[in-house]
């Protein structure tokens, strides 16, 4: 992952944040992300985020669970270790439905949780750049990715114009990484 330059603005009011997000999208600056202390309804639409395909992934995981359960149980009870019990046939499908159902749910739940973590870049042990320490407390923080065509002074001025309470320019790793302290130090040196 690349280390990039970001212009960061912190807002203290949702009512200011929403028009600011709209203005940023209209201006054509590259909106990196918005960090809020709580789930803000409608912000995803305002930011132009598309619906994820998480549920399709969930369906596929569920089908994997179903086929694992049916395949494995039917292999055991019809070919590997066929026993007659309860006077039932070897291929006793109704008896397997509860297990099949549970495995479907289990696969879908675990798979979707991991996919969700991957998509949101959260996982135990993972490090991510924090743009503002109060982004999980009482401020709404917006990060804009800068490049050669968007001089920082211009963007910071623009952000101040949208009602930002604080602004800053930071060098940051855009993605996530596993916690290695050498990298962290390298990182803090960049922003020192």
């Amino acid at each position, binding site marked *: 992952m690349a280390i990039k330059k970001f212009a960061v603005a912190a807002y203290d009011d949702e009512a200011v944040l929403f028009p600011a997000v709209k203005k940023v999208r209209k201006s054509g600056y590259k909106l990196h992300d918005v960090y809020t202390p709580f789930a803000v309804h409608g912000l995803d639409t305002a930011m132009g985020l598309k619906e994820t395909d998480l*549920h399709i992934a969930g*369906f596929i995981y569920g089908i994997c669970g179903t086929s694992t359960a049916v395949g494995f149980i039917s292999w055991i009870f019809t070919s590997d270790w066929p026993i007659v019990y*309860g*006077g*039932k046939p070897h291929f006793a499908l*109704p*008896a397997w*439905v*509860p297990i099949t159902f549970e495995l479907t749910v289990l696969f879908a739940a675990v798979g979707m949780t991991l996919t969700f973590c991957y998509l949101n870049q959260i996982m135990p042990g993972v490090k991510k750049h924090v743009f503002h320490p109060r982004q999980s407390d009482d401020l709404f923080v917006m990060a804009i990715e800068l490049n050669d065509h968007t001089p920082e002074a211009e963007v910071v001025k623009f952000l101040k114009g949208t009602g930002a309470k604080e602004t800053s320019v930071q060098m940051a790793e855009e993605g996530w990484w596993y916690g290695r302290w050498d990298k962290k130090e390298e990182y803090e040196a960049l922003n020192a």
Partner: protein
Amino acid sequence: MNDRFEIPARLRNTSIALIAVGILTLIGGIAALLTSHVDTDRARFWTVLLHDSVFFTLITAVSIFIQAAVSLAQGAWIVAFRRVPEAIGANVWVFGSIATVVLFAIVFTFKDAHGVNTIFPWVTPGNDAILLGKSAFLNKGMFVAFTLITIGLWSFFGQKFRAMSLAQEKAPKNDTKIYWKVFRLSGLFLLVYALTQMSTIPWLWIMSIQAHWFSTLFSWYTFASAFVSGMSLILLWVVYLKNQGNLGLVTIEHMHDLGKFMFAFSVFWTYLWFSQYMLIWYANIPEETVYFKLRQQGPYSIIFYANFIINFIMPILILMARPSKRNYFTVTFMAMVIIFGHWLDYFQMIMPGPLGAEWHINWYEIGIFMGFAGLLVFTVSRTLAKSSLVPHNNILLKETAIHIA
């Protein structure tokens, strides 16, 4: 916003034509079946009437339950189309009265050539030890009392909820007195509903057709069946009214919620259906398996499997995705499929007992169904046309307008 519904001539004519078909079928049935010397013909005459009148009573009564449950949860999403369940619920008395007449006629007049009531065998128990053992509950007195009390209470609450909702329109602005009255009565109705639809009524009306057999899950299972078709019925009305340019407050978000209910309760129905089936299959006790012997392996196997495919496989595959629940065509199509599927479900609950292998889905069954459907359309559209379709002055009106699924 067009908040009055004027019955289109086409709808009225269609419903009257359907009722006429139903009445002609009934006359044909009296001529061809009721006066027949074959016992199963006479049983078929009555069981088909029983099936349709009970089915329509239960799916319309679901509308009262939905109003009560959502009012108690203080849900606002339903308010945008609240007049629809109100209008359906206010007409429960129509179907309830017909069901009462049919049920009493069967209990008091129906007998086969040997003097045995083959539809409700507990009426003529003879020396049958099992039926005699159940006679403390399964007797004419209990049957009449439960039926009358149930139909009376459902009719009362159906009318009452609508009357209170109309009274709210004339109440002072932001007055919450009626709101809390509805809230309290909703709790009371849930109790009534739990003691009728969710327990005793399916035992008496449906399960006692095969009086030897019993299942403790049966009432929940019939409730789930009625609930999902009742939801589909509301959805069909909402779609129809929207097509007429009414119900401007109803957005795709409300439709999405209705679709979710259709999807979720199809799965819930399957859960109960399968729970009942699997335990009986696993235990394999003859007195219990007799029920599924007839249905799964006997003459009803085609309905048994069609029931599972229509009511589970189709809803789960078609309604699972979010876009399909937000598509008017898919939800309308699935609502019709679900109503037909659960009509079949009730068919296979009721028919095997009295008719055995002699079941038909033929002119008589279809004609009577059309008659009831016409009656439903006729009565509900008349009730809808009587008042404004937007529940003005309802304190949740703003909340329902901005509802997001």
